[in-house]
């Protein structure tokens, strides 16, 4: 069970994240999960100095576009690029957009972390 978890929607993502920035919280990480027909994205923050993490979670359709939080937290660029290329989560207006080529290459499997993609370099087999 994830403690201090708040369910949000993509429409409230930026306003919720802004509250953390205003409170001088530190962005920790995003975790993406494949739920079958939807994707689940969880954003973790930490109040510094402190020990508690707080999480925001939203569930979106695989074709839906979500806003980037990199305008608020620049450091989220790597995490957001990773969610796009590993899961296909469409993140709009990332401050530095690697276009799906941050960790993967041109010949790599597409969205390899999705459940219907087998590991081993030949996605989907």
């Amino acid at each position, binding site marked *: *069970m*994830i403690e201090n978890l708040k369910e949000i929607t993509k429409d409230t993502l930026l306003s919720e994240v802004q509250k953390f*920035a205003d409170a*001088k*919280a*530190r*962005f*920790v*990480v995003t*975790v993406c*999960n494949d739920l079958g027909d939807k994707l689940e994205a969880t954003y*973790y923050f*930490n109040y*510094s*100095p*402190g*020990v508690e*993490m707080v*999480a925001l979670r939203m569930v979106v359709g695989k074709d839906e576009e979500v806003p980037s939080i990199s305008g608020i*937290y*620049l*450091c*989220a*660029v*790597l*995490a957001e690029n990773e969610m796009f290329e590993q899961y296909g989560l469409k993140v709009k207006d990332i401050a*530095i957009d*690697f276009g799906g*080529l*941050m*960790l*993967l*290459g041109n010949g790599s499997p597409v969205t*390899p*972390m999705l459940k219907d993609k087998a*590991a081993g370099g030949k996605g989907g087999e």
Partner: protein
Amino acid sequence: MAPRTVAPFGPQHPVLPEPIQLKITYENEKVVDVVPALGYGHRGIEKACELNEYPKNIHLIERICGICSCIHGISYCETVERLWPMEVPPRAKYLRVIYSEMSRTHSHLLWLGLLCDALGFESMFMQFWRIREKVLDLLEMTSGTRVTHSVSVVGGVRRDIDDEQEKIIIRELREVRQEAEALINVLASDPTVKARTVGKGVLTKEQAILLGTNGPHLRASGVKEDCRMLGMQVYDELGFEPIVETGGDSYARALVRARETLQAIDLQLEAFSKMPKGEIFERPKGRPPANEVSYRSEQCRGECFYYAKGNGTQNLERFRVRTPTFSNIPSLLVMLPGSELADVPVIVLSIDPCISCTER
């Protein structure tokens, strides 16, 4: 306006033990912009973790990175143990701390040597690495290997440290501490070292927080944040207090790691003095239940985040690792612009980048 030039820094560079590229735009020897380029060592370890049965992942997780392997393995076990949740025997907790701090000692000594090498201080580089060998010998004596130790298992640890080994370790650690302290005193007061690090790559406290930095990098900017304060292991019984510097520059980052090297040895000695006798392993009952947990541990290079989701089978539904460097790289986008091109290598090195960790 002078012409601007874009130069690649890496993926192969003397200060980079692993491949990453920084596309650096500079004007009159001053850096004006930086864009990182990753992807030279991605191995898909998170995906592979879903395919293995959960106990086998320990060996996989330890191969995220050679230097951080021990704490990766321990933290994976601690994450999975939280899924049940289950308790491990007290002696196992102490042994995990000893192994973790031994890893931190050799990792920081390695980094101090690399810093000296980047500064051209070759004799000091060799001295740091010489005493690091003694720590690696201790790890080899207790775990059987120098790099991937595989000491931790879900439910405890695989190897105990007997009385004879304990005596040898304590004796060697005292020697290493004495030698390391002497070297650190020279390093910290050397005018050339100061000239190359003081005021270089400055990150203020506010910037460090907003840029998501962590570990020694964050603490060097005056933030008292360390996952060893979370109370999940036995650090609170050892009187642990995070080491903090306020300079926010490359020198402050070096001082934090130098002082943490000595602190790590002190923590090991303290752990040996308080470690209870008893069992070192408690067999997990059943399979990881359908549950999800997040966990943070203090790696040698900083805060490491783990997420595990069980589904009631022997396999994990999802395992996520966010390593320290993954979060520290964005700070370079702020630290490097405005600095001299010649200072770039030392500033990059000052975050103790680990690219195999970052790319997993």
